[in-house]
């Protein structure tokens, strides 16, 4: 069985590990925090049951079967034998850098690295590694099992071989690789964060309530989800972090974070994961 490691057992890591396991990979799911891992097990079981409802294909997901192929761990045991590491830790260059320095020590040469990020420079991460050509950005979208494509980010040193391996990995999980270049926010975040941020400004300015803002996107623009339910799903803290990164990188006021978003995060309203954001869960 092919082996991959997933680092970081947050929202993305949990779904990604389950998806890879469903498609037959043996998965190591690593998080530095024991409590996070315990929570991850519960969330994974719950998610797998919920996804059954969303499409015919996901009807075949079985929590016991999928979770039997995943080992949950707080250390790097087994990382020397994995083909791919897909890293999903916090969108913070310092946190990610620390993880990559550790990965550089524990993984074998020849290992490929998928940086799951929506805004951090792949070129900068790659500069920390012995084989920078084997580092590629993989911006998985949420919820992972339902998305058909991955925004795949080519760093300055990313090789053709790595792109081909990434394509095979993603295709084996029924996802298409969409190639974009490494530039802050890539394509998805530069667009989506402007939408989410401006939608938050609309709520702040009492122009419309979240339900109606989202309904306009769904029913008017035929998006599957509106910007505020998307923000709740991603996590408002993550949205604020990403906006801060975009603002810092471009120094362009269009990326200034809506004060309401910051206030909600300070109040612990982080969206779906905390039970309340623009909506109650």
């Amino acid at each position, binding site marked *: 069985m092919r082996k991959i490691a997933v680092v970081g057992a947050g929202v993305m890591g949990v779904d990604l590990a389950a998806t890879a396991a469903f498609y037959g990979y043996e998965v190591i799911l690593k998080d530095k925090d024991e409590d996070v891992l315990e929570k991850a097990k519960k969330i994974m079981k719950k998610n797998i*049951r919920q996804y059954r*409802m*969303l499409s015919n294909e996901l009807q075949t997901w079985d929590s016991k079967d999928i979770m039997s192929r995943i080992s949950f761990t707080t250390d790097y045991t087994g990382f020397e034998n994995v083909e791919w590491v897909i890293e999903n830790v916090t969108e913070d260059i310092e946190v990610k850098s620390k993880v990559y320095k550790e990965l550089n020590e524990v993984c074998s040469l020849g290992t490929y690295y998928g940086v799951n990020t929506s805004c951090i420079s792949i070129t900068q991460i790659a500069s920390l590694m012995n084989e920078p050509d084997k580092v590629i950005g993989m911006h998985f979208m949420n919820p992972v099992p339902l998305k058909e494509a991955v925004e795949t980010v080519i760093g300055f040193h990313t090789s053709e071989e790595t792109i081909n391996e990434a394509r095979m990995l993603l295709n084996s999980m029924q996802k298409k690789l969409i190639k974009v270049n490494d530039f802050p926010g890539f394509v998805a975040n530069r667009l989506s964060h402007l939408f989410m941020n401006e939608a938050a400004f609309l709520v702040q300015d009492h122009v419309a309530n979240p*339900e109606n803002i*989202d*309904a306009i996107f*769904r029913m008017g623009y035929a998006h*599957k*989800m509106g910007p505020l339910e998307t923000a709740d799903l991603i996590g408002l803290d993550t949205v604020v972090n990403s906006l801060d990164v975009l603002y810092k990188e471009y120094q362009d006021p269009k990326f200034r974070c809506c004060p309401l978003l910051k206030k909600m995060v300070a109040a612990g309203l982080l969206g779906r994961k905390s039970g309340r954001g623009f909506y109650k*869960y």
Partner: protein
Amino acid sequence: MENYEQARESIRNFIIGNMDVFDEDITLADDDNIFEKGFVTSIFAMRLLDFIEDEFKIEVADEDINLVNFSSVQQMVKLVEKSEG
């Protein structure tokens, strides 16, 4: 089920409270397919599962978790009855 009417009411209220409609005159019939009618999105189906399990203190069996069983008030009341055994 002892409280058929109660179950029906609480499911109805939850759906109505989360409907995506502009028109306040719209009515929800017990056999309306809430997804096909565009009252709610399929993402909302995931919240319905949580709601049903919490509200009625039941665990829906994996094989019963599908969109059809959550597609109308009627179907959900049936599902609750079945899951309560």
